[in-house]
């Protein structure tokens, strides 16, 4: 008999099968992920969790029989005698019949890990081309350890490596240890004449050998070597600009919040470090914390240029465009005083857009508001004009909660696919 302890064997043998399953069910799971993310707070989206997909798509069919006359033997008769007729009573009858026969599950539930969830959630999204180009330019040089070298500056001397090599050399060449000589000399002090001569000769050879084989030789010396590598900028800042004037309802703010959250989740996937700056504005702008941003009361007129000015200030003082990828998303109901248009377009084209990777404008409307019949808002008209002049702006209109994801999806859709298909 053998007893084998398998507990230390690598676990998750089923991991590959699981991945195959997810790959196969990708479309279904993706749908489920998007659906389940709709009723969650977007922060929780990052947590992964249980999803359920229709069993139908992942069904493993078999020849199964159903219907017909059935005979069954059951235990636990209490009062029936032969020839009794038992009325059919739907549910309970079916339960007592073929166990394991009818798979009544219509949905298949299982747990996705956080990574799997976010992966599927953002599967086909990409940073826009513009951002990619900038990203390539924004690389800076960094140093990386790259082994050892025999030449270099004394500051880079690697003591441990040098001493290790020296030791190896000394051992290999059998350099006598000082202790051996000391021992022989001690022996020399009290011994007879014949032995003395032999000892003296031996000590002499050893000492000569020590002189020939240095403790540290120039060939032992090693320096740490460094290489320069291009280092992509791994941090991003995300500016959330929002109009909080009286015309913005709770619903509109909620839409904006959802959009910001999605952008945040998305950016955290791409960058190691993401900062968020909240700027709210009426006719003047201020930087606030998240809670105030979404819930703080404010009132006043509307001057979009004030927010852009504030953003520009903050970029200048805190986020050097060389070190940071800058993303901005602006949400507004589209009202802006006409006199402000010039200032806005100037700020955008001259100061903000050149340093930003991406600037999105989201025009939020009331739920059920038919945006088509309304004339375009002043801000929308302005941005459209700027776009026509070639400014890299993304502008979208949203009025329903369910539109947020499609709009977001649309903005960041992977573009190479089309190019690939074309080529």
């Amino acid at each position, binding site marked *: 008999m053998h007893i*084998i302890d398998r507990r230390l064997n690598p676990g998750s043998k089923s991991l590959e099968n699981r991945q195959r*399953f997810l790959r*196969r069910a990708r479309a279904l799971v993706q749908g489920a992920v998007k659906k389940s993310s709709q009723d969650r707070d977007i922060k929780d989206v990052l947590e992964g969790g249980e999803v359920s997909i229709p069993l139908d798509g992942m069904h493993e*069919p078999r020849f199964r029989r159903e219907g*017909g006359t059935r005979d069954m033997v059951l235990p636990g008769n*209490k009062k029936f005698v032969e020839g009794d007729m038992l009325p059919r009573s739907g549910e309970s009858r079916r339960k007592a019949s073929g166990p394991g026969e009818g798979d009544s599950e219509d949905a*298949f539930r299982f747990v996705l890990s956080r990574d799997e969830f976010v992966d599927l959630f953002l599967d086909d999204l990409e940073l826009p081309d513009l951002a990619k180009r900038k990203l390539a330019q924004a690389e800076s040089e960094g140093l990386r350890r790259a082994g050892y070298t025999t030449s270099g500056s004394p500051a880079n001397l690697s003591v441990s490596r040098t001493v290790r090599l020296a030791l190896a050399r000394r051992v290999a060449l059998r350099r006598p240890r000082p202790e051996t000589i000391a021992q022989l000399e001690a022996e020399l002090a009290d011994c007879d004449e014949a032995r003395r001569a032999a000892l003296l000769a031996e000590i002499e050879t050893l000492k000569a050998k020590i002189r020939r084989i240095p403790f540290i030789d120039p060939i032992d010396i090693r320096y740490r070597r460094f290489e320069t590598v291009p280092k992509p900028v791994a941090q991003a800042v995300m500016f959330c600009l929002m109009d909080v004037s009286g015309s913005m309802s709770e619903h509109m703010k909620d839409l904006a919040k959802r959009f910001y959250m999605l952008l945040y989740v998305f950016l955290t996937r791409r960058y190691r470090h993401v900062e968020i700056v909240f700027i709210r504005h009426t006719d003047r702008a201020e930087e606030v914390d998240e809670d105030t941003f979404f819930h703080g009361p404010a009132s006043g007129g509307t001057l979009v240029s004030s927010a852009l000015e504030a953003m520009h200030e903050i970029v200048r003082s805190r986020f050097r465009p060389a070190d940071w990828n800058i993303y901005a998303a602006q949400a507004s109901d589209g009202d802006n005083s006409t006199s402000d248009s010039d200032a806005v377009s100037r700020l955008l084209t001259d100061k903000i857009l050149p340093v930003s990777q991406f600037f999105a404008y989201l025009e939020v409307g009331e739920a059920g508001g038919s945006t088509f019949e309304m004339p375009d808002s002043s801000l929308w008209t302005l941005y459209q004009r700027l776009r026509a002049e070639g400014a890299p702006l993304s502008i979208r209109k949203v009025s329903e909660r369910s539109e947020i994801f499609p709009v977001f999806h649309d903005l960041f859709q992977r573009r190479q696919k089309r190019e690939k298909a074309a080529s």
Partner: protein
Amino acid sequence: MTATTDRLFEGADWDFQTLQRIHDACEEIARSELGLDTYPNQIEVITAEQMLDAYSSVGMPLFYKHWSFGKHFAHQEASYRKGLMGLAYEIVINSSPCISYLMEENTATMQTLVIAHAAFGHNHFFKNNYLFKQWTDAEGILDYLDFAKNYVAQCEERHGRLAVEQTLDAAHALMSHGIDRYPGKKKLDLRAEEKRAGDRRLHEEGAFNDLWRTVPTGPIKSPELLNTERRRNLLGLPQENLLYFLEKTAPRLQPWQREVLRIVRHIAQYFYPQSQTKVMNEGTATYVHYRIMTRLHEQGQISDGNFLEFLQSHTNVVFQPEFDDQRFSGFNPYALGFAMMQDIERIVSSPDDEDREWFPDIAGTGDVMAVLRDIWANYRDESFISQFLSPRLMRHLRLFHLHDDPAESAGVLVDAIHDERGYRRVRRELARQYDVGYIDANIEVVDVDLAGDRRLMLRHSVVKGAQLNEADAKRVLQHLADLWSYDVSLVEVDPTDTIEKEYVVSPRELAAAAA
């Protein structure tokens, strides 16, 4: 009672020496008192996570990769995490050496129970039952699974994952119809199979000569020559092993696809005896563990407290809810099997008049283990129940037989109960519930339209009006058509040869077909 120093263990903790002692103590009783004959044992201790892994690959230690196992894993993991499902205490594999997986969470008592149950009960059954002897090759199975795993992986490398997956999907859908039900062929030797697969390929490569392609074929034979009788003979029709038929005759399969079908077919065949002997297998193992544990307790090798712990889990295992109980979901094979084994023990050792009348061969012969060993070796669930379910046990379980005819609007008829008039009918019906001939749909390949469009014709002989589930049948037939590469039709025929329903399915374009 002997002194406590003879105890195998104290409390709940165990280590590997304890397991060894437990195994040796169980083996002593199993050999000398029960006369069991087992494969050598290999006991493996695993974690809960590994148990879940094993669950999802049909309990085997190694298996080829397929998404459906991942699906089962995801599902089981979810329900395990939610606490909906407990894990089995053990899994045992019909192989030589016989591998039993023990969970590390089990207490020492549970490990004893599990070793007695799996390493001796199941092990003896695997080694001695005629179905297992006939259909499985315990020595070769692990090697064969290893071969299968590597072969499928190689195919994926050569032919692409998608093509292999489609073939496996189709083969899995037909798995329940990939079994030879009747012996007569030589026993499967899986090691030799593996070698033959290699030889076949080598021969094909060695005998390849491009010239053969240019040799003109003879004049096309007239359709009259290929008369139905001859054709059916040549094709070995009718054939109920659909996978075998496809492997041998499907016109456009690649050689590797045939091999994959073969693998799935062999694995289905390997599990075939297990599905036919659930009650007996579990009954045997439960009876053996009960005997061994009781004996260990009598000898003082396990303490009263530990024995009570055993009794508690034993009682849970053999619990049979009644039909109107919320928990009822059919017969518990452990309960029915164990009750029948104990009943046979009673009949053999202290029969009453009724037993003498019903079981003249075994009543009062005295040697319980000889009778049981003989039964374990020579019966399957269906024959076991139809011969050894005693009136007394039927009364005890209060069995009754319901006949549900949809045409009868008044309701369901109680056809027989546990009384003098009903014993035989109840017993026959219960045995039938375990008869694979009744459980599986009877589907056969009846003909191939060789002269025409090569349509494959199948026939389902409808029994008691139970037709195939339409949605599933269409899907399975689609898979079948994909493998066959031409149209496939299935007719459902009632006993009077009237066609009740007909399906026709055309093949889809497959990734494999393009390769």
